[in-house]
């Protein structure tokens, strides 16, 4: 299959529904550059942030594994808000503040992730190990989607990302239709303004 690479700049606050006037299935909110691979009926999409790091790198297989209904996805919005709060409490109280909150969520994969982080496994090694666990997880659909959100959050929190950046990481999973609403409704998170300025 021939693969075409192309880039498209898009402004902040606009959902990216088309690239070069062709529709795409996934969108993202926030300023950045879309690098899309025209392959698998536009299912493979890579989105970089301003620093050139991948915010989203979507493949058809990943999209298939995560596929769940909009209603299911929206049930995780309170959890996203919890993660934003957790990131603030982690910055205040470190690992001891985070551990009970992650334990309360009751997802074994997140508990293992925190365990590995507490051992000092960070950065690429941490992400690779968590990607391996996710890819070998027997889950698919909504439970898999939830696991991805949990691990994505854990990475952002432990890397002490500003809440605004963490939020942008997470809203991207919710698709263009709901991302803007989620972003706006969570905008009053502490530290949001610091990141924006």
């Amino acid at each position, binding site marked *: 299959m021939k693969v075409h690479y192309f880039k498209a700049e898009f402004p902040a*606050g606009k959902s990216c529904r088309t690239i070069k006037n062709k529709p795409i299935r996934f969108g993202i909110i926030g300023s950045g550059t879309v690098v899309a691979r025209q392959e698998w009926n536009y299912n493979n999409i890579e989105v970089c942030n301003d620093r050139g790091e991948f915010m989203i790198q979507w493949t058809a297989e990943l999209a298939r594994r995560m596929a769940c209904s909009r209603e299911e996805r929206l049930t995780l919005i309170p959890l996203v808000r919890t993660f934003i709060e957790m990131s603030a409490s982690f910055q205040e109280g*470190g690992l001891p503040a985070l551990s009970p909150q992650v334990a309360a969520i009751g997802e074994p994969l997140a508990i293992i992730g925190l365990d590995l982080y507490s051992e000092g496994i960070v950065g690429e*090694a941490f*992400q690779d190990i968590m*990607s391996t666990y996710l890819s070998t997880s027997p889950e698919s659909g909504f439970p898999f989607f939830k696991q991805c959100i949990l691990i994505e959050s854990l990475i952002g929190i432990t890397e002490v990302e500003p809440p605004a950046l963490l939020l942008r990481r997470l809203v991207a999973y919710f698709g263009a239709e709901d991302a803007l609403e989620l972003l706006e409704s969570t905008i009053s998170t502490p530290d949001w303004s610091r990141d924006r300025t």
Partner: protein
Amino acid sequence: MIRNLPGFVASSAGCQPVSRRKKTAIFEVAARLTLIAEKSRLGGPEVLRNSALLERRKQLKLGLDLCARGMRHESIDAAFRKPAFARSEDPGERLETLVIRAGIHALSEGDHPFLIFRKMTAFLGLEFYAKSNDWLAARITRRRKSRTEELIVPGDLPDVIRELAKDRILFERVIRTTGRDIMSASLAGCPRESLQLIKPVFGKVGGTILEDNMLFLKSRLSTEEIAAAQSTFLEIERTIHNQKQIQDASGPETSQAQTDSANIHYIRELTRIILDIEDRPLKIALSGTEARTLAAAMQGMEPAGHERILSSLGKRDEKRLLDALDNLDLLETPEIQRAATQVLARLSEASIKSGKQSSEIINRINSFAESVISKLT
């Protein structure tokens, strides 16, 4: 996005489940590779060469041989892509190849044996996590206590660590920000007491990795290199300490949250005004505003506001503004807002003069400017 997730998910697609019995056998292979990695840390490539000669499993034999010859990532990948490994129909064998390849990659990168083990056993899934912990705990128990002599690089670090350890939260934050690699190199020139204070932060497994790395580096780094790592640690400690002092001085969390919330509304309202105003008064106002003032005000604006302003300027003014933005440090909120009041005053004046702006916008600009000024005074 979680690094490598799409690739890992794609490569695991369509894989048949592997029996627990086979996974247990693969676990044993991973443990064996970890033990070889431990020995090779002391004995070097010779250990890998000898282990490769004795090894029966073809993937592990190949991997060890590649590592002994100093091959890195791409060469290892290329070797494991050979049809004999890559095209196996047996799901157990495919999984074994993935596990060994991950281990060999990590070994070639010089990872600690326990980290190599963690990377490999992740392929076996969550149900093998507890077993991995048990295996690591048993390895730690069986180890002999190191009896190497202390190497003390003169400096403040041991005193700083002792003092820092009194504040557990700050202590942990500094150590985690520093990371285990710099920490290990720094500790290579510290008394044993410093290591004993830091080890518990990383738990039993992480603490052992820290100590091993410290001992490993002690014999490999020069005094200058250790001193450089120590000054990096001290720099990080100073930065975090100063940040904490600033946070403590700025009052309780609630007032910070209130300030942040107020800032959010400020940024949104200013951006909306910039977006809502007509082209002509905007252009007039911008042309009469100094580039530095405009750049300072733009630090308190959403990117959409930046785009509107930049697109309203001519080429020369745009370049001037972009230069001003580049040259400007991150300002404190009052300074940003003072610059914004000047821009708002110009906008209000230009809107009135142009006669093309609705009174509603003019009123919004004026009342917003008043509210900003009242907070500044």
